[in-house]
Each structure stands twice: as C-alpha cells, then as structure tokens.
C-alpha cells in the first residue's frame, strides 16, 4: 500500500542556495511516507511545452511525512545544464511534476554494527537520512564528506549531529584534510572496525571505495548515478554490468535495480562497456 512510486504535481515550498548547491523543498504529499534512504525522485523540467523531455533524477535528501503544508521532500542539486537551470529558477508555489520515491534504497544491517558513510559532493545528501536509520538500529555512524573544494561540500554542520565522527576532505585543501575521501578511508575503516561502508558520489569514487571495502572485508553499498531517461525502468538507458547471485553478469537498470548496489557486484572497470561474458553479449548489433 505505501510502497511504489507516486506521480504528482509537487509545489515549491522553498529554494535556497547552499554553497554551490540549490536546496529545494517540495510539497509532495505521500512521497515521504514511502521514502527510504537512498531513494530518488525524478522531476519533469521545463514546463508544459518543454524542449527537454527527459526527467531529471535527484537523491532524496530529506522527506517529512507531514507538516503545515503536507508531506515534503527535499533535494540538493548543482546547476549543470538546462534542466537544473530551470529548477534553480523556480519560485515558491510553482508546480513541478514529481515521481518518487524511486529505486532500491540502501540495505540496512540487521545487527548494530559500526558503519562508515562516504559522500562525494552533493552525494552526501541521502546519507543524513541513512545515518538516522542506522542510529535507530544502534549502529555507530562515521561520516566522510569529500569534495573538490569547500563550496562543493554539502552538510558538514549537519554531519556533526548525524554521526559520531566526521572527516572532511577537499582536494584543494580549502577545508579539512587535503585530498580525497578515499585517502582517509582505510584508516577510518580500521579505526572504527566498520562492518559496512555506504557511499554516494561520482563513479570513480564508488569504484575505489568498493575496492577498499573488499580489501578490508567490509560490505559496501554504493549509490550510482547513471544517465537516466525515464527513471522508472522502461527505457533501458541506465544500465551497468552487475554480477548476480548466480554469478552471471547482466546489464541491469540502475533506476529500478539500483541506484544502490552492493559494491562487490558491480563491474566498475567495465562500466560503459558490455564486458565479455555478459548475458546476451554483443554480436553484430541491431539498431533500436
């Protein structure tokens, strides 16, 4: 009943600038109730006569089941192209067609184990809700927030409330430890005795984290960001090579079977290709 995505006309409640990002709060009754950390929304952009037809996907940062205005969902985004530029130009009361929540959320540990959460740039957005859930289950939570520079970090203050420990890294050293999130990870995994690492950020970061997790014998849960045309599983654009329980590699849709994957199941180095041996791997190609 309270599963499955909704499609509805959301209404802009607030739009604030946070560093290099926009923080958008949408009134979207019903979505919050169904949201679990790691899920995303797909927003239509550009209005009724839009030349940009494809929906844009955004991790859900926060979801509140009720409130003065009815349930809300919040996202954090960077202006990148026409779709995000349009979103950044919305005003309170404007309508946005929302579909959500979508995708498979982060899997939660059954035991109260130590967890490390790593967010790259706006990739930290879905980690705060996750941290809450983990703490509810008695897990200890340690966070790493990494970005190219200070203005590209999101949620450092909030992280201090959400986690037992927080490490911030920036590549330009403008704040925190200079370097990448993955530089500080081995130490942290060892120090916290982590059982699971959760990660959301660019593919390169996820790939490195999945490898480190394996080296340390730690489970990893990685939220990927593949290009998506529909977000709901009907177009087959968002695929990625993933090894199944049966050992077979398949091109799987990251919108419905992800965006969160077990890090050890994704063939990171082969993303963007059809690795040899994949189910139904290429022969002479047909255009469609």
């Amino acid at each position, binding site marked *: 009943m309270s599963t499955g995505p909704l499609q509805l006309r959301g209404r802009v409640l607030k739009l604030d600038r946070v560093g290099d990002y926009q923080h958008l709060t949408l009134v979207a009754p019903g979505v919050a109730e169904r949201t679990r950390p790691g899920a995303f929304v797909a927003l239509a952009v550009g209005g009724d006569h839009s030349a940009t037809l494809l929906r844009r996907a955004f991790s859900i940062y926060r979801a509140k089941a009720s409130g003065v205005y009815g349930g809300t969902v919040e996202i954090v985004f960077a202006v990148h192209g026409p779709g995000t530029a349009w979103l950044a130009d919305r005003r309170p009361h404007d309508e946005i067609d929302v579909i959500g929540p979508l995708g498979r959320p982060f899997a939660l540990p059954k035991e109260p184990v130590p967890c490390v959460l790593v967010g790259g740039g706006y990739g930290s957005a879905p980690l705060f809700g996750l941290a809450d859930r983990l703490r509810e289950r008695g897990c200890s939570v340690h966070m790493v927030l990494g970005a190219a520079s200070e203005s590209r970090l999101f949620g450092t203050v909030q992280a201090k409330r959400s986690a037992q420990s927080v490490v911030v890294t920036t590549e330009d050293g403008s704040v925190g430890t200079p370097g990448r999130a993955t530089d500080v990870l081995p130490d942290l995994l060892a120090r916290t005795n982590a059982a699971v690492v959760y990660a959301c950020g660019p593919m390169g970061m996820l790939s490195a984290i999945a490898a480190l997790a394996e080296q340390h014998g730690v489970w990893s849960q990685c939220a990927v960001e593949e290009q998506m045309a529909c977000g709901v599983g009907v177009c087959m*654009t968002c695929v990625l090579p993933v090894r199944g329980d049966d050992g077979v590699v398949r091109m799987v849709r990251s919108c419905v079977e992800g965006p969160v994957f077990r890090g050890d199941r994704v063939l990171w180095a082969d*993303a963007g290709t059809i690795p040899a041996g994949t189910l139904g791997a290429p022969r002479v190609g047909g255009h469609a």
Partner: protein
Amino acid sequence: MTVTSQPAAVVDSSSDVGAASGPVVDLAIELAGVRLPTPVMTASGCAAAGRELAPFLDVAAIGAVVTKSVRLDPRSGRATPRMVETPSGMLNSIGLQGPGIDAFLATDLPWLVSHGARAVVSIAGGSLGEYAELGRRVGSSPGVAAVEVNISCPNVENRGLVFACDPFQAARAVSAARRGIPRDVPVLAKLSPDVTDLVSIADSVMEAGATGLTLINTTLGLAIDHDTMRPVLAGTTGGLSGPAIRPLAVRCVWQVHQAMPDVPIVGVGGVRTGRDAFEFLLAGATAVQVGTVVFHDPSAPHRVANELQVALAARGLRSPAEAVGLAHQPRPRPEGTDD
C-alpha cells in the same frame, strides 16, 4: 506497486473547453479486428513489458501495451551511453536489450494477460529465419492481441542493411513472421521513415501479409559530445524520437493513408497530448502509440486518451473512428471568399 497516481504533467486543451456540452464519446475502437478500449497504446521500447507502468496507470484500461521488441535470444544491448536528449526529442541506441523470446513468453506475456492488458508483442529478427521462428513462437502463445513486426533491424544475411529500407527485404521479413501467426491475430508491420518512397514499402509489406502498419519507427540521427569531441552514443548513431519528429510521423501517416485508405494504421512519433493523438487520427491513423513522452510522463497513455476524448467531444465527434482520415476531405473554402 499498484498505487493509483495523481493527475499528471502536460495538458494542452485550451481550445477544447466547452467539451462538457459535446456528445458522449466512446473511446473504444476496432483495430484490424481487435477491440481496444481506447486508441492510445504504449510504443515498443518505451514501456518495457508494461509492468513498470502499473504504478502510473491501469494497464487494463489503456488501448494496449506494445512490448519492447524481443529477439530470439537474450541480448545485452549496446554499451552506454545509450541516449542523448535533443531539442524536443532524444536519440537512443539501446540495441534491443532483452531476455529473449523464451523468457518473454514465460514471464512478461503472462503478466500482461493476467492483468487484463491487451498485449501487442513486438518481435525483431536479424535474419528471415529468426523472424520465422519468432512468428511461430509468438503465434502459438495464447493471449497475444496482435503482433508488431519491427523490421528496422540490420539483416545479417544482407550486408547488415536494414530490412525496412528495401521493399523486397521488408516484405520477406513480414511474410516470414506472418507464416506462424494465426489468421485471427493481426500483424502490424512497423516501418522506418528513412526511405525515399514509404508508400512502396507499405504496399509491399501489405502484400506480404501484414494486417496493418505502425508508422513510424525512429529516424536515424547522431549527436556529438562537445567535450570528448566524439559521438555521444556508444553505438555512434541512434534513433531520433519525440515531439521533434511528430510532423514527420504525421506526414508518413498522411501519405500512406492517402495511397491506401483501407489499411489500418497505428500512428506513432511525438504524441504528447490528446490533440497530438487527434492529429494522427485526422491524418488517417486508427490508433496511436505514445513512446518518448512516457519517459516524461509515465501516465501519458492514460492521460492522452482522456484528452483525446475531450478534443473529440469539443468537435462534435462521437468516437475516434469518426475522426480517422478527416483531414483528407476537401478543405472548406478559405475565409474571405464569399461566393
């Protein structure tokens, strides 16, 4: 996954007001002998096998679900990137990723049947033998409302030339598939617009045993990434779809209906609103499919039918059938001439 959804996205019926005062429109149609509750279906490759749309519409209430073209064997499809957004459209190069016909018949088809949907099964082959085998397998499966034969595939036996681009090869593919399909199951041949003379292709696939035509498949396009300075798509070229190509699709329907007014046509290409669907009917289509716009609004096949109902009522038409081909009637005299 059976939650009913709120009303959605695009509505464009400004001049359709006053519809309440129009006649009661029954949206049901008959397409090549098959009764459909509305003339609005999904388009192949834009609805998977229907299941993923269940949260957004009632699959039993829309015209039909046209499934992603299925090949004989499982296929991984092409490498990514598989799509690029383009002005009012998109390019795709999926490469017919799918489970193969056996898995499709074992899983996807029964799901559609058990949920009360009319399943139009799209098949695609790389050789005449494959079309024949696919026709046999699908033809012997219960619950198939119609078969759509996607011939926009390279023919491995003919230097990889696309079947749909040659009247003779197109006919052979359709005829191969047709053989194994029972008489009472309509076969729609889906044509490519990328030909000099569409009517001759239409003619030859009808001769080869098609019951009707689906017009059009995507038109070939290409986009280059400004940063990598290489084609965006891993497959280099891709199929262009969406509202950008609607005038092209409407023209194809128009030309074929003009030449062969008795052939049932399913119009597809850029349908976004009920008025777009209406435009296809006026051009000569009996039914329409919604493809790319489903990515924009997964409730579209349902919404478009509702909007079409309003558009028909506003113009005093009582059924979709009454609109079919109307635009071919002589034009009323231009305004301003009063004799």
